[in-house]
Every structure is written in C-alpha cells, then in structure tokens.
C-alpha cells in the first residue's frame, strides 16, 4: 500500500490552493488526485472572464485562472495524478483510487476534500411533463459547447437565474442560438448582479421573476416549455401560463456539494450547506480530514474558493506538524435572516490573529445591518446598503474578541431603523 502524508481529492481551484499552501508550510509528501485530464476542474469549461478580481486584481478567464495555480503547483513539484478517480474513502484515511494503470489503495495521514459540486437536475426539481432530449443542466451544456465544441440547440429557454444559467444565456446567444428568456422561481435573481447586466440586459434577454417551468412537451426532442407565474408560496397561478417553442431547456437551479465519498466515510453533513461541518481551519469533525471549496459550501466567486483552499492547506499542514491538538472553542449560529455561517465551530480561538466568517442571507435586504453577537452581547454591527442571497458575505473578528466568547457566535441581519 502506498503511503502519502496528505492526499488532496480534486485538482480544481480549492485542491490546487490547498496543495500549494501545504507545500509552502513545509509538507512535501503530497498527492493531488484529479479525475479530469488536466488540473483546473470546472474552471476549464468557464471560458468567460471575470475570475481573479480579488486574487490578481485582473479579470481572467477560467482556464487562465486555473493555469496560474496549476503552474505554481508544477513549479513547487507537487505531484498531480490526472484521469484518476477516487472510488472509496474510509474513516482510517485509506483511499481507493482507479486509473488506467491500476486500482490502488493509498494510506494518507491527512486528507483535503476538494471534490467540488454537482448541479441539481430536472429529476431533483420534478418538473412535470415529458422527458425528451434537449433538457440539459447549464453546466453540462457549457461543457458540450466550450470543451467539446458542439452546438446543442437553436432556440433556448433557461430555468433558474443562477450564475451558470446567466453565463450560458450569453454563451448560447453568441453561438447563434436564440435565447427566449429565463424563468426564476424567486422574486429576485440568484445570480451575481454583474452577470444579470452583462449576460441578460446587454443582449435583451427577458428575465421572468416569480415564474417556473410547469410543463415540458415534445418527444423524442423537446419542442415546447410552459412557464407559469408563482404566488408568494411558490405555487403556480393558473391562467398565467406562457408557452415558448424551443428545442433546448437549460437548468440552472442550484448546485449541491458532491459529498458521496464523505458520507461513505461516515462524516455527517450539515443539512444547510450540504457540506461537512468545519472549524476555522476547514477541519471536519474527523481529525485530519479537511474540506474546501464547493464541496464544503457553494461559492459565488472562485477567488473565495482559492482563499478557502489555502486555509484548509494551512490547517492540514498544522495538523500534520502536530499543532492542532486541544480543541476548545465555541460554535457559530446562523441567526435571523442568515442561511448558514461558516465555520460552524471555532476550535482554536487564540491560534491566529483573526478568523473570517462567511455567510449568506436568505432573502435580499436593503439598508440592513449585520449583527454579530455572543449570546445577547453585541460584538459588532456592520451597516450594509444591500445584501443579496447570491453573494457571500464575510465578517472578520480578531482573536482578542474570539478568546472571550462564552456562548455561541451568532450572525444575524436586521433591517436598519
């Protein structure tokens, strides 16, 4: 059995950042396992620009952004095994690995989970109607168009205004297809504001808020979708149907962390994030198992994925050097208006000068404030002109504050008076 100090499962933005950080922190016995033919993960199919504004202060394409980190890993001599799939992961940190040279069991001392996420599918959201050819998740469509170079349809409707849906609306238009509209179940978009402007408004593509697809017709090829307005309880309102004759329906209806391996190893998931619960070093309840990127929670910007990967890498290095021992801190809590807070625990409140907390609001707010509390004691208030569920918010607290937290750290949103 091959022994490796730290195995990183997934060579996308989170895995690459974690590996580079591990190496910089003195851990040399590393291995990145990547299922695809090259490192970069899903970035390789994101050929639009907009990546790296935080990391590099410039707008890179997805492949260019990935390349910078892949190059760093290469320069540092970090081994990456591509076309290699992890088929099993056990609580003793043994990992079963399959590729065209064999089937191998690797024993790791520490593991960084960086498997990314999956798209929610038509089946998961149970759209009624036929199941014809021509219904794709937006990411699969993106792969067919950007990596394989195929056309997948001429007249397109999109359900869900997540970022991939918005990006694909523009992409399909540039490929010569007619995009007839996007329906969004919620009364607001789940994509970044800049994507709504650059991908829809600039191309005159209508966005139907509070609408959903209520019928799919055609066989074997899609020929019609019906959308219907929904009420405040998201129930379709009869009589508001609109029919679009299309050959393609793209779905951008959410992403779900890909934790099949994690669950098989017996690590429970947080039902809110659908990723593992972690502390401030991205360490799961199973010591030595770390998680970062979209496998932990779904991010809006890749720059934040990279930062989280680094955090996990630094944590894994500390673990391997025996620096993460006595856990003893406090849990965090998503208060009023907040969907989830990461990390779910702070275990070593005195270790670092600061700890960063990430969270998302449940619904849009205007002129609100973020309140950070320890029990009833308010620790911090931040005024915000606007808060959107699509955008991840962050709060940083210094260790002199963290060291004194007695109960649990609650983050909540309040309408400003």
């Amino acid at each position, binding site marked *: 059995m091959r022994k490796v100090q730290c195995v990183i499962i997934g060579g996308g933005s989170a895995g690459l950042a974690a590996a580079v950080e591990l190496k910089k922190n003195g851990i040399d016995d590393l291995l990145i396992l990547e299922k695809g033919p090259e490192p970069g993960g899903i970035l390789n199919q994101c050929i639009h620009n907009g990546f790296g504004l935080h990391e590099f202060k410039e707008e890179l394409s997805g492949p260019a952004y990935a390349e910078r980190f892949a190059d760093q890993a290469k320069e540092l001599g970090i081994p990456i095994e591509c076309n290699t*799939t992890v088929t099993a992961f056990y609580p003793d940190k043994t990992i079963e690995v*399959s590729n065209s040279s064999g089937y*191998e069991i690797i024993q790791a001392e520490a593991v960084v989970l960086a498997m990314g996420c999956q798209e929610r599918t038509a*089946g998961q959201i149970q759209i009624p*109607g036929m199941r*014809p*050819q021509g219904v794709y998740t937006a990411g*699969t469509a993106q792969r067919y168009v950007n990596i394989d170079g195929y*056309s997948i349809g001429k007249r397109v409707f999109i359900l869900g205004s997540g970022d991939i849906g918005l990006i694909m609306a523009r992409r399909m238009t540039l490929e010569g297809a007619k995009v007839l509209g996007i329906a969004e179940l919620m009364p607001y978009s789940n994509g970044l504001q800049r994507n709504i402007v650059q991908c829809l408004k600039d191309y005159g593509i209508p966005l139907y808020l509070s609408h959903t697809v209520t019928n799919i017709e055609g066989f*074997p090829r899609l020929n019609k979708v019906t959308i219907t307005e929904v009420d405040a309880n998201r129930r379709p309102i009869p009589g508001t149907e609109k029919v679009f004759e299309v050959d393609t329906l793209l779905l951008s209806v959410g992403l779900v962390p890909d934790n099949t391996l994690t669950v098989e190893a017996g690590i429970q998931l947080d039902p809110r994030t659908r990723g593992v619960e972690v502390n401030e070093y991205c360490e799961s309840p199973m010591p030595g198992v770390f998680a970062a990127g979209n496998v932990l929670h779904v991010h809006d910007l890749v720059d934040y994925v990279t930062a989280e990967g680094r955090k996990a890498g630094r944590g894994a290095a500390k673990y391997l050097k025996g620096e993460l021992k006595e856990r003893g801190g406090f849990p965090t809590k998503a208060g009023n208006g907040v969907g989830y807070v990461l990390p779910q625990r702070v275990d070593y409140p005195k270790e670092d000068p600061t700890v960063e907390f990430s969270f998302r609001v449940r619904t849009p707010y205007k002129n609100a404030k973020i309140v950070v509390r320890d029990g009833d004691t308010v620790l911090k208030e931040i005024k915000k002109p606007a808060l959107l569920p699509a955008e991840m918010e962050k709060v940083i607290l210094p260790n002199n504050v963290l060291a004194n937290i007695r109960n649990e750290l609650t983050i909540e949103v309040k309408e400003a008076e």
Partner: protein
Amino acid sequence: MKYNITIIGAGIIGSSIAYCLSKYDCSILVVDKENDIANEVSMANSAIVHAGHDPEDGTLKALLNVEGNRMYPQLCEDIGARIRHVGAYTVMTSPEQQATMDALIKRAEERNIPYEVLTAEEARKEEPNLADDVIKVLSLPSTAIIIPWEVALKQMQVAVLNGTEVKLNCEVKAIRKNENGYVLETSQGEIETEYVINCAGLYADRIANMIAPLDIHTNPRRGEYFVLSHDAKDFVHHIVYPIPTDKGKGILAVPTVDENILLGPNAEETGSCEAINTTSSGLGYIRQELARSVKNVPFHHTIRTFAGLRPSISTKDFYIKKAEGEENFLNLLGIDSPGIASAPAIARYVDDLLKLPYEVKASYETKNPYRFNFQDLTPEEKDAYIKEHPAYGNIVCRCEQISEGEIIQSIHEVLGAHSIKSVKKRVRPGMGKCQGGFCQPLVLEILARELKVRPEDVLYDQIGSNVVLDWKGGNGNA
C-alpha cells in the same frame, strides 16, 4: 425476407418467448418499433416478481404468476440476470381490511405460496419506517425484484446466439395473408412469416386488428414514479404496500436491485400510448397515498421522476389467444401486472399453445455467456484486470462508478448498446445523482468512437433524439 416465426415486440414478453422458442430448428425474427430491447412498458414499471397470491382464482394471471415466480431463480441464474428476493410486506391499517387480508392468505395457502402474518411490532423491527397505524403485515418472502430490461436483454441475447434475428426501429404497418402464411408490411420492408406472435404491448390491439377484428382494446394506464438516490437505500428493505383495493395494489415503496428506492405508481387511464409525461397531480397523489403504509419518506433524495404505461384491457386478465380463424397468429394482450412475474411462464404457455411443428435442435444455448462483471472483483483483482485492460481503470460515471471498459463491453456484446440510453440501461452511467451531467459527454465520445459514427449521429434513444446538433470543430479539429 422469410421466417418461420415472427415475434412482434421485444419487451420482456417477446424476449422471454424468443428465448423459449429459440430451441427449435426454425428461423425466428423479432421486430420492434423502438431503438432498443425492452424500451417501453418493460422499461418503466415497478420491477417486481410478485409472489402470485394477488390474482383472482381461475385467471391466467393466477396460473402464470405463480409458475413464473417459481421459474425466476433458475432463469436468472441461467441468463446471468440479478434478482433480489427482498420479500413483500402488505400492510393492514384498519380492521375493515381483515376480510381482504383473509382472502389473500387463503389464496397464498391454496397456491403453496410461502407467507407469514406479522404483528406491527415484529414488522417494525425489520421496517422502522412503517406508518404508525399499521396493525398487521402479510409478509411474502418469495416476492422478488429484478431489472426487467436486463432480464429481457439477457434472454434475447441467448436467443440471438441460438440464431434468432432482431430488427429494431422496425414498425409493423399492416399485415396481409398469403399462401404460406402472413406478410408483414414494416418500416423496413416486407417480411414473410408462417407464424406471428403479437406481444406488442401497448400496440397489441392495433396489431391484432390488422389480421382479424378484435373487440378488445388496450387502455394505456399511466403510472408515475419517484426514484431516490443510494442515500435513501435504507428507507425500506422489503417491498412495502397497503392491502390492495379495487384500484390496484396501491402505492409501493420498492428497494431496487441497484439499491435505489422506487416510489409509485398511481394509475390513470390516459387514452394515449404516448402519454409518458409526469404530472404534478400524479406525483402529489403518490406523496399523499404513500403515507398509508410508510412514514419519514426521504423525498429530498429524489433523483428522477418518470412515468410508464401499462397495456391494460377491460377484462383485467391476460388475453392469450389465437386470432379468429387463424391457427398460426397468436395475440397477447393486457399483459400488465403481474406481467413481469409471469413472463417466463407466459413463454412456456405460448410454446404449449402453438404446438409448433419444428424439431428441437440437437444443441442450443440456455445460458448467457456474458457473465463478466468488473464490479464484482476485489480491489486486488481489479488492479490485475486493469493492468491487462486499462480502460477498466478509467472511471466515466463517478456516481455509479462505471468504467470506460464496462461501457465498451456493453457496446460490443450481442444486441450491444448503441445510444446513450441503451448504455445507461446496460451499465448504469447516468443513473446516479448527477443524472449524467458529468458522464454523458464522455459516454457520447465513447459511443462515437466505438461505433465509428459522427458524434452528432449518436442518439440519446429514439431516432431523432440526437444529443448534439452539429460539429463545429472542437477537440483539435478546428
């Protein structure tokens, strides 16, 4: 083209009949309008080999279900199909159902079907998710689950190895008689045949009417289903359903061969053979009715919903009879539940009924030679096998962990996979949580390469279901 026997319909019934009759020294053709074996009724159903206690006395259903259930273990062993004897729990939730329960027990007793009556407490030890008001359970351990299209395919493969021919995408448009028998006018030209066996499922009444008017009509009854992911595999370990009513067997919770959970079906007459759409009302009804027998249903693990059609007829029994005035034209209509359970017995019944004038061949196959299943190997065996066959190390479908080697294997077998869906039916890429989101482009590439066709000619399923529309020069061909 001339054949001794032509079987219309390559579902589980047509396949079982072909498997049974391929022992004879005669030429057999199977035609189907679909682009794969078992692609309609046999593909979208509850996949259950019922014990045989349910059909009423004196019916063909009772006779053939009991016999079929007993034939299945040997059949599956011979053809290398998987079967799980998970057993059924028929749950009683009110004292008024006692009479029905007694009737079921009486039939089970008379038909020598193993059964046991469990108290709610005993049953809950095995199935903690039984509904709170369950008061008694009829346990039927001989009830099993299979994969209907696997049983069909593996039988048909043996038939083909015995000389049977199969024509897919071959729709029968009209039938006329000639001096030697019948001429089928099909979408692939005329076929002359001495015998016709019509097991065309939803379309069997139309085929029957092509030779002699028949006063029986197929009324397609739609059943909708939820499929749950492996994350829900421990929800139930038996097939659980309520005491049947006039409407049918009620809503089932079924653990499948591949450790998914199937929930459904409702029953709705659609009047159309094409109405395989799901509906909000149908799926809502299933959600509501399931509560009669189970609780804590993990609907959040749903990965797919689908609908299938049953080829029901008004008499409610199987109809297996020769056409009026025709010695050599056999019609099979109304093969709905328990059609799957009865399939091997139906084939034997058809064989007896036709009294074919052909000799049994001196040697013929009953066993399917395609037995190798990479998934059954230990890690060490997998390693050794991959070293000889590297494609088996390349995982294409992460959710179900299917390798390129297994996909290639499915393409090159007899009646091999030739579309995205036929690959999915044979080796499961796309049946997992991502529903093919990650693997479909890879499967497409493998199909194009192995079949030596252009990627835009690769079909999802039927003709016209091309996956990609035109080739614009990616992958280095720009």
